[in-house]
Protein backbone atom coordinates (compact mmCIF):
# COMPACT_ATOMS: atom_id res chain seq x y z
CA UNK A 1 0.00 0.00 0.00
CA UNK A 2 1.53 3.24 -1.19
CA UNK A 3 0.19 5.41 1.62
CA UNK A 4 1.93 3.62 4.46
CA UNK A 5 5.18 2.89 2.65
CA UNK A 6 7.10 6.03 3.74
CA UNK A 7 6.33 5.31 7.39
CA UNK A 8 7.31 1.67 6.94
CA UNK A 9 10.52 2.58 5.13
CA UNK A 10 11.60 4.91 7.94
CA UNK A 11 10.81 2.36 10.64
CA UNK A 12 12.57 -0.41 8.74
CA UNK A 13 15.64 1.75 8.09
CA UNK A 14 16.05 3.42 11.48
CA UNK A 15 14.44 1.04 13.97
CA UNK A 16 14.22 -2.55 12.73
CA UNK A 17 17.50 -2.66 10.84
CA UNK A 18 19.55 -1.10 13.67
CA UNK A 19 17.91 -3.48 16.11
CA UNK A 20 18.93 -6.54 14.07
CA UNK A 21 22.34 -4.98 13.41
CA UNK A 22 22.75 -4.42 17.15
CA UNK A 23 22.63 -8.16 17.81
CA UNK A 24 25.53 -8.66 15.40
CA UNK A 25 27.58 -5.71 16.69
CA UNK A 26 27.20 -6.93 20.25
CA UNK A 27 29.07 -10.11 19.27
CA UNK A 28 32.10 -8.14 18.05
CA UNK A 29 34.69 -5.79 19.48
CA UNK A 30 33.51 -3.02 17.10
CA UNK A 31 35.66 0.09 17.67
CA UNK A 32 34.73 3.55 16.42
CA UNK A 33 37.31 3.30 13.64
CA UNK A 34 39.33 0.35 12.34
CA UNK A 35 38.65 -3.36 11.82
CA UNK A 36 36.47 -5.45 14.11
CA UNK A 37 36.53 -9.09 15.16
CA UNK A 38 33.87 -11.59 16.03
CA UNK A 39 34.30 -12.36 19.72
CA UNK A 40 31.18 -14.38 20.51
CA UNK A 41 29.56 -13.74 23.84
CA UNK A 42 32.59 -12.11 25.42
CA UNK A 43 30.87 -8.72 25.69
CA UNK A 44 27.97 -10.23 27.58
CA UNK A 45 30.28 -12.12 29.89
CA UNK A 46 32.19 -8.93 30.62
CA UNK A 47 28.93 -7.04 31.14
CA UNK A 48 27.70 -9.28 33.91
CA UNK A 49 30.95 -9.04 35.83
CA UNK A 50 31.42 -5.31 35.27
CA UNK A 51 30.98 -3.50 38.61
CA UNK A 52 30.45 -0.14 36.93
CA UNK A 53 27.64 -1.50 34.78
CA UNK A 54 26.01 -3.08 37.81
CA UNK A 55 26.30 0.24 39.60
CA UNK A 56 24.61 2.05 36.69
CA UNK A 57 21.75 -0.46 36.63
CA UNK A 58 21.20 -0.28 40.39
CA UNK A 59 21.43 3.51 40.35
CA UNK A 60 18.94 3.81 37.47
CA UNK A 61 16.46 1.52 39.24
CA UNK A 62 16.95 3.50 42.46
CA UNK A 63 16.35 6.81 40.70
CA UNK A 64 13.24 5.40 38.98
CA UNK A 65 11.94 4.13 42.31
CA UNK A 66 12.52 7.53 43.93
CA UNK A 67 10.79 9.75 41.37
CA UNK A 68 7.87 7.59 40.19
CA UNK A 69 5.61 7.98 43.22
CA UNK A 70 6.12 11.77 43.68
CA UNK A 71 5.53 12.44 39.97
CA UNK A 72 2.33 10.42 40.12
CA UNK A 73 1.04 11.90 43.37
CA UNK A 74 1.77 15.51 42.40
CA UNK A 75 0.24 14.95 38.95
CA UNK A 76 -2.81 13.30 40.51
CA UNK A 77 -3.18 16.15 42.99
CA UNK A 78 -2.99 18.75 40.22
CA UNK A 79 -5.58 16.86 38.17
CA UNK A 80 -7.91 16.66 41.20
CA UNK A 81 -7.52 20.35 41.97
CA UNK A 82 -8.60 21.32 38.48
CA UNK A 83 -11.12 18.54 37.91
CA UNK A 84 -14.33 20.49 38.50
CA UNK A 85 -13.34 23.10 35.89
CA UNK A 86 -13.81 26.08 38.15
CA UNK A 87 -12.99 29.50 36.70
CA UNK A 88 -9.31 29.67 35.77
CA UNK A 89 -8.82 25.88 35.65
CA UNK A 90 -7.81 26.00 32.00
CA UNK A 91 -5.19 28.68 32.62
CA UNK A 92 -3.78 26.82 35.63
CA UNK A 93 -3.61 23.60 33.62
CA UNK A 94 -1.70 25.42 30.88
CA UNK A 95 0.74 26.81 33.45
CA UNK A 96 1.38 23.50 35.26
CA UNK A 97 2.34 21.92 31.96
CA UNK A 98 4.84 24.65 31.01
CA UNK A 99 8.03 22.99 32.32
CA UNK A 100 7.28 19.88 30.28
CA UNK A 101 6.89 21.97 27.13
CA UNK A 102 10.20 23.75 27.72
CA UNK A 103 11.85 20.34 27.84
CA UNK A 104 14.23 18.64 30.25
CA UNK A 105 17.31 19.68 28.28
CA UNK A 106 16.70 23.41 28.66
CA UNK A 107 15.48 22.92 32.26
CA UNK A 108 18.73 21.12 33.09
CA UNK A 109 20.82 24.01 31.72
CA UNK A 110 18.69 26.39 33.81
CA UNK A 111 19.59 24.48 36.94
CA UNK A 112 23.27 24.34 36.01
CA UNK A 113 23.13 28.04 36.87
CA UNK A 114 20.65 27.89 39.74
CA UNK A 115 22.36 25.06 41.63
CA UNK A 116 25.72 26.84 41.78
CA UNK A 117 26.87 27.13 45.42
CA UNK A 118 27.32 30.89 45.59
CA UNK A 119 25.36 32.38 42.76
CA UNK A 120 22.43 30.03 42.28
CA UNK A 121 18.97 30.89 43.49
CA UNK A 122 18.39 27.51 45.14
CA UNK A 123 20.94 28.11 47.91
CA UNK A 124 19.76 31.66 48.28
CA UNK A 125 16.13 30.61 48.60
CA UNK A 126 16.90 27.86 51.11
CA UNK A 127 18.93 30.17 53.33
CA UNK A 128 16.19 32.80 53.12
CA UNK A 129 13.68 30.22 54.30
CA UNK A 130 16.15 29.17 57.02
CA UNK A 131 16.14 25.63 55.64
CA UNK A 132 19.87 25.60 55.13
CA UNK A 133 22.55 27.78 56.58
CA UNK A 134 25.63 26.88 54.60
CA UNK A 135 26.07 26.81 50.87
CA UNK A 136 25.88 23.45 49.21
CA UNK A 137 27.75 22.15 46.19
CA UNK A 138 24.58 20.44 44.99
CA UNK A 139 25.89 18.45 42.08
CA UNK A 140 29.09 17.23 43.72
CA UNK A 141 27.89 14.90 46.44
CA UNK A 142 25.78 11.89 45.53
CA UNK A 143 22.81 12.43 47.85
CA UNK A 144 22.34 16.14 47.32
CA UNK A 145 22.64 15.78 43.54
CA UNK A 146 20.12 12.95 43.49
CA UNK A 147 17.76 14.97 45.68
CA UNK A 148 18.08 18.10 43.55
CA UNK A 149 17.64 16.25 40.26
CA UNK A 150 14.65 14.30 41.61
CA UNK A 151 12.89 17.50 42.70
CA UNK A 152 13.61 19.10 39.30
CA UNK A 153 12.23 16.07 37.48
CA UNK A 154 9.06 15.96 39.59
CA UNK A 155 8.56 19.66 38.86
CA UNK A 156 9.17 18.98 35.16
CA UNK A 157 7.11 15.81 34.65
CA UNK A 158 4.07 16.05 36.93
CA UNK A 159 2.27 18.22 34.36
CA UNK A 160 2.19 15.35 31.88
CA UNK A 161 0.75 12.97 34.48
CA UNK A 162 -1.82 15.65 35.29
CA UNK A 163 -2.89 15.89 31.64
CA UNK A 164 -3.19 12.14 31.13
CA UNK A 165 -5.21 11.73 34.33
CA UNK A 166 -7.38 14.74 33.46
CA UNK A 167 -8.15 13.12 30.12
CA UNK A 168 -9.23 9.99 31.97
CA UNK A 169 -11.28 11.93 34.53
CA UNK A 170 -13.20 13.71 31.81
CA UNK A 171 -14.28 10.33 30.47
CA UNK A 172 -16.01 9.38 33.74
CA UNK A 173 -19.78 10.03 33.44
CA UNK A 174 -20.94 12.78 35.81
CA UNK A 175 -24.09 10.78 36.59
CA UNK A 176 -22.01 8.30 38.60
CA UNK A 177 -20.96 11.01 41.04
CA UNK A 178 -24.47 12.43 41.18
CA UNK A 179 -25.89 9.02 41.95
CA UNK A 180 -23.29 8.61 44.71
CA UNK A 181 -24.24 12.03 46.09
CA UNK A 182 -27.83 10.90 46.28
CA UNK A 183 -26.71 7.86 48.23
CA UNK A 184 -24.85 10.18 50.58
CA UNK A 185 -21.39 8.82 49.77
CA UNK A 186 -18.44 10.67 51.28
CA UNK A 187 -15.78 12.35 49.12
CA UNK A 188 -13.23 9.68 49.98
CA UNK A 189 -15.65 6.89 49.17
CA UNK A 190 -16.43 8.43 45.78
CA UNK A 191 -12.73 8.69 44.99
CA UNK A 192 -12.01 5.09 46.00
CA UNK A 193 -15.11 3.51 44.48
CA UNK A 194 -15.63 5.59 41.31
CA UNK A 195 -12.58 7.63 40.31
CA UNK A 196 -9.76 5.16 40.95
CA UNK A 197 -11.34 2.08 39.29
CA UNK A 198 -12.52 3.99 36.22
CA UNK A 199 -9.20 5.78 35.95
CA UNK A 200 -7.25 2.53 35.93
CA UNK A 201 -6.20 2.80 32.30
CA UNK A 202 -4.99 6.41 32.57
CA UNK A 203 -3.16 5.66 35.80
CA UNK A 204 -1.38 2.72 34.21
CA UNK A 205 -0.51 4.78 31.14
CA UNK A 206 0.92 7.67 33.15
CA UNK A 207 2.93 5.31 35.38
CA UNK A 208 4.36 3.39 32.44
CA UNK A 209 5.35 6.57 30.62
CA UNK A 210 7.06 7.93 33.70
CA UNK A 211 8.82 4.64 34.54
CA UNK A 212 10.18 4.30 30.99
CA UNK A 213 11.19 7.96 30.97
CA UNK A 214 13.04 7.59 34.27
CA UNK A 215 14.74 4.42 33.21
CA UNK A 216 16.04 6.12 30.06
CA UNK A 217 17.21 9.18 32.00
CA UNK A 218 20.20 10.88 30.43
CA UNK A 219 19.89 14.65 29.92
CA UNK A 220 19.50 15.76 33.52
CA UNK A 221 22.40 13.63 34.81
CA UNK A 222 24.70 14.27 31.88
CA UNK A 223 24.14 18.04 31.92
CA UNK A 224 24.05 18.57 35.68
CA UNK A 225 26.48 15.97 36.99
CA UNK A 226 28.48 14.49 34.14
CA UNK A 227 31.66 14.28 36.22
CA UNK A 228 29.98 12.41 39.03
CA UNK A 229 30.40 8.70 38.29
CA UNK A 230 28.22 7.72 41.23
CA UNK A 231 25.27 9.26 39.36
CA UNK A 232 25.76 7.40 36.11
CA UNK A 233 22.59 6.03 34.51
CA UNK A 234 22.40 3.12 32.08
CA UNK A 235 21.97 5.36 29.02
CA UNK A 236 24.85 7.57 30.15
CA UNK A 237 26.97 4.44 30.43
CA UNK A 238 26.02 3.35 26.92
CA UNK A 239 26.96 6.78 25.59
CA UNK A 240 30.26 6.96 27.47
CA UNK A 241 31.30 3.41 26.59
CA UNK A 242 30.38 3.84 22.94
CA UNK A 243 31.52 7.35 22.23
CA UNK A 244 34.14 8.21 24.86
CA UNK A 245 35.81 4.80 25.21
CA UNK A 246 35.02 3.90 21.58
CA UNK A 247 33.79 0.44 22.50
CA UNK A 248 30.70 0.25 20.31
CA UNK A 249 30.42 -3.55 20.53
CA UNK A 250 30.41 -3.54 24.31
CA UNK A 251 28.04 -0.55 24.49
CA UNK A 252 25.63 -2.32 22.15
CA UNK A 253 25.52 -5.44 24.32
CA UNK A 254 24.40 -3.15 27.10
CA UNK A 255 21.85 -1.45 24.87
CA UNK A 256 20.26 -4.81 24.08
CA UNK A 257 19.90 -5.40 27.78
CA UNK A 258 18.04 -2.09 27.88
CA UNK A 259 15.76 -3.27 25.05
CA UNK A 260 14.79 -6.29 27.14
CA UNK A 261 13.91 -4.20 30.20
CA UNK A 262 12.02 -1.58 28.21
CA UNK A 263 10.34 -4.37 26.25
CA UNK A 264 8.97 -5.87 29.46
CA UNK A 265 7.60 -2.52 30.63
CA UNK A 266 6.22 -1.78 27.16
CA UNK A 267 4.46 -5.13 27.04
CA UNK A 268 2.61 -4.00 30.13
CA UNK A 269 1.74 -0.75 28.36
CA UNK A 270 0.60 -2.71 25.33
CA UNK A 271 -1.63 -5.02 27.35
CA UNK A 272 -3.20 -2.14 29.23
CA UNK A 273 -3.94 -0.19 26.06
CA UNK A 274 -4.97 -3.06 23.85
CA UNK A 275 -8.70 -2.90 24.52
CA UNK A 276 -8.71 0.73 23.46
CA UNK A 277 -6.89 0.45 20.16
CA UNK A 278 -9.12 -2.40 18.96
CA UNK A 279 -6.37 -4.53 17.47
Amino acid at each position, binding site marked *: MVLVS*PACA*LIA*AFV*LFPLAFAVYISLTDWPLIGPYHYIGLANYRELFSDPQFRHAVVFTFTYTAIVTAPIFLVGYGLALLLRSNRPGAKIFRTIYFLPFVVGLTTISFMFVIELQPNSGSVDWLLSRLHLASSTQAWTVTHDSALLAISVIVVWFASGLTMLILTG*GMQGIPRELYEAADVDGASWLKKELRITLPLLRRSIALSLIISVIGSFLAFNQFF*ILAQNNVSLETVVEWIYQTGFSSYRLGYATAM*ALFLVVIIGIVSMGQFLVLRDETEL
Partner: protein
Amino acid sequence: MSAAGATAARPVARHRRARGPAFWAYLFVATALALVFVVPLAWAVARSFQPSTLASQHPQGADFTHLTIANYRAVFAQEHITRNVINSLIAAIGTAVLSMVVCTMAGYGLAKFRFRGSGIVFASILLALMIPFQAVLTPLFIELNYLHLTNSLLGLVLVYTTFSLPFGVFVMRNTFQQVPAELIESAEVDGAGVVNTLLRVLRPLILPGLATTAIYAFLYSWTEFLQALTFLETDGKLTLPVKLFDIETSTYGTINYGYLSSGIVIAMVPCIVLYLSLQRYYVQGLMSGAVKG
Protein backbone atom coordinates in the same frame (compact mmCIF):
# COMPACT_ATOMS: atom_id res chain seq x y z
CA MET B 1 -34.26 14.90 49.58
CA SER B 2 -35.47 13.19 46.43
CA ALA B 3 -33.28 12.69 43.39
CA ALA B 4 -35.35 15.13 41.39
CA GLY B 5 -35.06 17.76 44.11
CA ALA B 6 -31.28 17.37 44.26
CA THR B 7 -30.95 17.89 40.52
CA ALA B 8 -33.21 20.94 40.54
CA ALA B 9 -31.34 22.56 43.43
CA ARG B 10 -27.96 21.94 41.84
CA PRO B 11 -27.42 24.98 39.59
CA VAL B 12 -28.20 27.39 42.40
CA ALA B 13 -26.05 25.54 44.88
CA ARG B 14 -23.15 25.42 42.47
CA HIS B 15 -23.41 29.10 41.70
CA ARG B 16 -23.27 29.99 45.35
CA ARG B 17 -20.38 27.59 45.93
CA ALA B 18 -18.43 29.19 43.10
CA ARG B 19 -17.85 32.29 45.22
CA GLY B 20 -17.78 30.67 48.65
CA PRO B 21 -14.72 29.99 50.81
CA ALA B 22 -14.06 26.74 48.95
CA PHE B 23 -13.62 28.73 45.77
CA TRP B 24 -11.16 31.14 47.35
CA ALA B 25 -9.24 28.27 48.87
CA TYR B 26 -9.03 26.66 45.45
CA LEU B 27 -7.93 29.93 43.87
CA PHE B 28 -5.26 30.44 46.54
CA VAL B 29 -3.81 26.94 46.26
CA ALA B 30 -3.94 26.91 42.45
CA THR B 31 -2.28 30.34 42.23
CA ALA B 32 0.44 29.39 44.69
CA LEU B 33 1.16 26.29 42.62
CA ALA B 34 1.13 28.32 39.43
CA LEU B 35 3.88 30.50 40.93
CA VAL B 36 5.94 27.39 41.69
CA PHE B 37 5.76 26.42 38.02
CA VAL B 38 6.22 29.87 36.50
CA VAL B 39 8.68 31.68 38.77
CA PRO B 40 11.75 29.56 37.92
CA LEU B 41 11.10 30.06 34.20
CA ALA B 42 10.44 33.77 34.64
CA TRP B 43 13.56 34.09 36.77
CA ALA B 44 15.61 32.45 34.01
CA VAL B 45 14.40 35.18 31.65
CA ALA B 46 15.08 37.94 34.19
CA ARG B 47 18.59 36.63 34.84
CA SER B 48 19.47 36.73 31.16
CA PHE B 49 18.78 40.48 31.05
CA GLN B 50 21.08 41.24 33.98
CA PRO B 51 24.44 42.86 33.31
CA SER B 52 27.05 40.12 33.04
CA THR B 53 28.57 41.03 36.42
CA LEU B 54 25.18 40.40 38.02
CA ALA B 55 24.20 37.42 35.88
CA SER B 56 26.44 35.25 38.00
CA GLN B 57 24.92 36.27 41.34
CA HIS B 58 22.00 35.00 43.34
CA PRO B 59 18.62 36.71 43.05
CA GLN B 60 19.36 39.27 45.74
CA GLY B 61 21.85 40.83 43.38
CA ALA B 62 19.22 41.22 40.67
CA ASP B 63 18.95 44.73 39.34
CA PHE B 64 15.85 45.57 37.38
CA THR B 65 16.82 49.16 36.67
CA HIS B 66 19.76 48.34 34.45
CA LEU B 67 18.33 45.65 32.22
CA THR B 68 20.54 44.99 29.26
CA ILE B 69 20.68 42.83 26.16
CA ALA B 70 24.47 42.60 26.40
CA ASN B 71 24.36 38.84 27.08
CA TYR B 72 22.34 38.25 23.93
CA ARG B 73 24.66 40.44 21.88
CA ALA B 74 27.66 38.57 23.22
CA VAL B 75 26.25 35.11 22.67
CA PHE B 76 25.47 35.98 19.05
CA ALA B 77 28.77 37.76 18.43
CA GLN B 78 31.18 35.55 20.43
CA GLU B 79 29.55 32.15 20.23
CA HIS B 80 28.03 32.56 16.74
CA ILE B 81 24.85 31.05 18.07
CA THR B 82 22.84 32.23 15.03
CA ARG B 83 24.14 29.21 13.14
CA ASN B 84 22.94 26.86 15.88
CA VAL B 85 19.52 28.50 16.12
CA ILE B 86 19.13 28.09 12.35
CA ASN B 87 20.25 24.45 12.59
CA SER B 88 17.69 23.80 15.32
CA LEU B 89 14.99 25.49 13.24
CA ILE B 90 15.89 23.40 10.20
CA ALA B 91 15.81 20.20 12.27
CA ALA B 92 12.56 21.07 14.05
CA ILE B 93 10.63 22.48 11.08
CA GLY B 94 11.96 19.76 8.78
CA THR B 95 10.84 17.08 11.23
CA ALA B 96 7.44 18.73 11.72
CA VAL B 97 6.78 18.97 7.96
CA LEU B 98 8.04 15.48 7.16
CA SER B 99 6.06 14.02 10.07
CA MET B 100 2.90 15.75 8.87
CA VAL B 101 3.27 14.25 5.38
CA VAL B 102 4.30 10.74 6.47
CA CYS B 103 1.77 10.52 9.33
CA THR B 104 -1.11 11.84 7.22
CA MET B 105 -0.42 9.25 4.55
CA ALA B 106 0.00 6.40 7.02
CA GLY B 107 -2.95 7.46 9.17
CA TYR B 108 -5.19 7.69 6.12
CA GLY B 109 -4.03 4.33 4.82
CA LEU B 110 -4.45 2.57 8.16
CA ALA B 111 -7.82 4.11 9.00
CA LYS B 112 -9.60 3.89 5.66
CA PHE B 113 -8.15 0.98 3.73
CA ARG B 114 -7.91 -2.71 4.51
CA PHE B 115 -5.10 -4.30 2.57
CA ARG B 116 -2.94 -7.36 2.70
CA GLY B 117 -0.30 -6.94 5.35
CA SER B 118 -2.04 -4.06 7.14
CA GLY B 119 -1.73 -6.13 10.30
CA ILE B 120 2.02 -6.42 9.83
CA VAL B 121 2.32 -2.69 9.19
CA PHE B 122 0.44 -1.90 12.35
CA ALA B 123 2.50 -4.40 14.32
CA SER B 124 5.75 -2.89 13.06
CA ILE B 125 4.63 0.56 14.09
CA LEU B 126 3.77 -0.82 17.51
CA LEU B 127 7.20 -2.42 17.67
CA ALA B 128 8.83 0.89 16.81
CA LEU B 129 6.82 2.35 19.65
CA MET B 130 8.46 0.00 22.11
CA ILE B 131 12.05 0.53 21.00
CA PRO B 132 13.47 3.71 22.46
CA PHE B 133 16.13 5.36 20.32
CA GLN B 134 18.55 5.13 23.26
CA ALA B 135 18.57 1.37 22.78
CA VAL B 136 19.70 1.54 19.14
CA LEU B 137 21.98 4.54 19.52
CA THR B 138 25.19 2.67 18.65
CA PRO B 139 23.99 0.68 15.58
CA LEU B 140 22.17 3.78 14.38
CA PHE B 141 25.39 5.75 14.59
CA ILE B 142 27.29 3.15 12.57
CA GLU B 143 24.51 3.00 9.99
CA LEU B 144 24.24 6.78 9.62
CA ASN B 145 28.00 7.03 9.39
CA TYR B 146 27.99 4.48 6.57
CA LEU B 147 25.25 6.43 4.76
CA HIS B 148 27.18 9.71 5.26
CA LEU B 149 24.30 10.98 7.35
CA THR B 150 26.25 11.75 10.52
CA ASN B 151 27.05 15.40 11.08
CA SER B 152 24.09 16.07 8.81
CA LEU B 153 20.82 17.82 9.58
CA LEU B 154 19.10 15.65 6.96
CA GLY B 155 20.16 12.54 8.89
CA LEU B 156 18.87 14.11 12.09
CA VAL B 157 15.51 15.00 10.50
CA LEU B 158 15.08 11.42 9.22
CA VAL B 159 15.82 9.92 12.61
CA TYR B 160 13.69 12.46 14.52
CA THR B 161 10.79 11.82 12.15
CA THR B 162 11.10 8.08 12.65
CA PHE B 163 10.98 8.32 16.42
CA SER B 164 8.06 10.76 16.46
CA LEU B 165 6.14 8.57 13.99
CA PRO B 166 4.38 6.29 16.46
CA PHE B 167 2.70 9.22 18.17
CA GLY B 168 1.84 10.99 14.93
CA VAL B 169 0.52 7.89 13.17
CA PHE B 170 -1.80 7.14 16.09
CA VAL B 171 -3.09 10.69 16.18
CA MET B 172 -3.69 10.79 12.43
CA ARG B 173 -5.25 7.34 12.38
CA ASN B 174 -7.71 8.37 15.10
CA THR B 175 -8.39 11.59 13.21
CA PHE B 176 -9.21 9.80 9.98
CA GLN B 177 -11.36 7.25 11.77
CA GLN B 178 -13.64 10.10 12.80
CA VAL B 179 -14.07 11.28 9.21
CA PRO B 180 -17.38 9.92 7.86
CA ALA B 181 -16.85 7.33 5.14
CA GLU B 182 -19.59 8.92 2.99
CA LEU B 183 -17.52 12.07 2.63
CA ILE B 184 -14.62 10.14 1.12
CA GLU B 185 -16.95 8.08 -1.07
CA SER B 186 -18.70 11.13 -2.47
CA ALA B 187 -15.33 12.69 -3.24
CA GLU B 188 -14.40 9.53 -5.11
CA VAL B 189 -17.67 9.66 -7.03
CA ASP B 190 -16.77 13.18 -8.04
CA GLY B 191 -13.59 11.75 -9.48
CA ALA B 192 -11.14 13.18 -6.95
CA GLY B 193 -7.93 11.17 -6.49
CA VAL B 194 -6.46 10.31 -3.10
CA VAL B 195 -4.29 13.44 -3.03
CA ASN B 196 -7.15 15.69 -4.06
CA THR B 197 -9.49 14.13 -1.50
CA LEU B 198 -6.90 14.76 1.21
CA LEU B 199 -6.06 18.31 0.21
CA ARG B 200 -9.49 19.63 -0.73
CA VAL B 201 -12.18 17.65 1.00
CA LEU B 202 -10.67 16.39 4.23
CA ARG B 203 -8.30 19.21 5.09
CA PRO B 204 -10.55 21.13 7.48
CA LEU B 205 -11.48 17.93 9.29
CA ILE B 206 -7.95 16.72 9.86
CA LEU B 207 -6.38 20.08 10.69
CA PRO B 208 -6.53 19.62 14.50
CA GLY B 209 -4.83 16.22 14.26
CA LEU B 210 -2.22 17.65 11.93
CA ALA B 211 -1.52 20.47 14.36
CA THR B 212 -1.05 18.00 17.23
CA THR B 213 1.35 15.93 15.12
CA ALA B 214 3.33 18.97 14.01
CA ILE B 215 3.67 20.51 17.50
CA TYR B 216 4.76 17.20 18.99
CA ALA B 217 7.38 16.71 16.26
CA PHE B 218 8.62 20.30 16.55
CA LEU B 219 8.96 20.25 20.35
CA TYR B 220 10.59 16.82 20.28
CA SER B 221 13.26 17.82 17.79
CA TRP B 222 13.80 21.33 19.16
CA THR B 223 14.62 19.99 22.62
CA GLU B 224 16.27 16.66 21.72
CA PHE B 225 19.77 16.33 23.14
CA LEU B 226 21.31 12.83 23.10
CA GLN B 227 20.93 12.05 19.39
CA ALA B 228 22.13 15.50 18.37
CA LEU B 229 25.08 15.10 20.74
CA THR B 230 25.94 11.71 19.23
CA PHE B 231 25.31 12.30 15.53
CA LEU B 232 26.56 15.87 15.06
CA GLU B 233 30.26 16.63 15.14
CA THR B 234 31.32 20.05 13.89
CA ASP B 235 30.41 23.34 15.52
CA GLY B 236 28.64 24.61 12.39
CA LYS B 237 26.18 21.70 12.45
CA LEU B 238 25.31 21.65 16.15
CA THR B 239 21.74 22.25 17.25
CA LEU B 240 21.05 24.68 20.06
CA PRO B 241 20.94 22.20 23.00
CA VAL B 242 24.35 20.73 22.05
CA LYS B 243 25.74 24.24 21.61
CA LEU B 244 24.55 25.11 25.12
CA PHE B 245 26.36 22.04 26.38
CA ASP B 246 29.51 23.29 24.65
CA ILE B 247 29.09 26.65 26.34
CA GLU B 248 28.64 24.90 29.69
CA THR B 249 31.72 22.71 29.36
CA SER B 250 34.21 24.39 27.02
CA THR B 251 35.60 27.14 29.20
CA TYR B 252 37.53 25.17 31.73
CA GLY B 253 36.05 25.34 35.20
CA THR B 254 34.21 28.60 34.79
CA ILE B 255 30.89 28.82 33.01
CA ASN B 256 30.00 32.02 31.22
CA TYR B 257 26.65 32.60 32.88
CA GLY B 258 25.74 35.43 30.57
CA TYR B 259 26.10 33.25 27.48
CA LEU B 260 24.38 30.29 29.06
CA SER B 261 21.43 32.20 30.49
CA SER B 262 20.67 34.03 27.25
CA GLY B 263 21.07 30.78 25.30
CA ILE B 264 18.57 29.11 27.65
CA VAL B 265 16.00 31.81 26.97
CA ILE B 266 16.54 31.52 23.21
CA ALA B 267 15.93 27.76 23.53
CA MET B 268 12.88 28.28 25.73
CA VAL B 269 10.94 30.97 23.86
CA PRO B 270 9.90 29.08 20.68
CA CYS B 271 8.53 26.21 22.80
CA ILE B 272 6.46 28.52 24.97
CA VAL B 273 5.18 30.65 22.08
CA LEU B 274 4.21 27.61 20.02
CA TYR B 275 2.59 25.95 23.01
CA LEU B 276 0.59 28.97 24.12
CA SER B 277 -0.67 29.75 20.61
CA LEU B 278 -1.58 26.16 19.69
CA GLN B 279 -2.09 24.61 23.12
CA ARG B 280 -5.73 23.78 22.37
CA TYR B 281 -4.57 21.14 19.89
CA TYR B 282 -1.56 19.96 21.83
CA VAL B 283 -3.20 19.59 25.23
CA GLN B 284 -6.28 17.99 23.67
CA GLY B 285 -4.12 15.55 21.75
CA LEU B 286 -2.19 14.54 24.87
CA MET B 287 -5.29 14.35 27.07
CA SER B 288 -7.13 12.07 24.67
CA GLY B 289 -4.66 9.44 25.80
CA ALA B 290 -3.01 9.26 22.42
CA VAL B 291 0.38 9.54 24.06
CA LYS B 292 2.10 6.22 23.95
CA GLY B 293 5.68 6.85 24.92
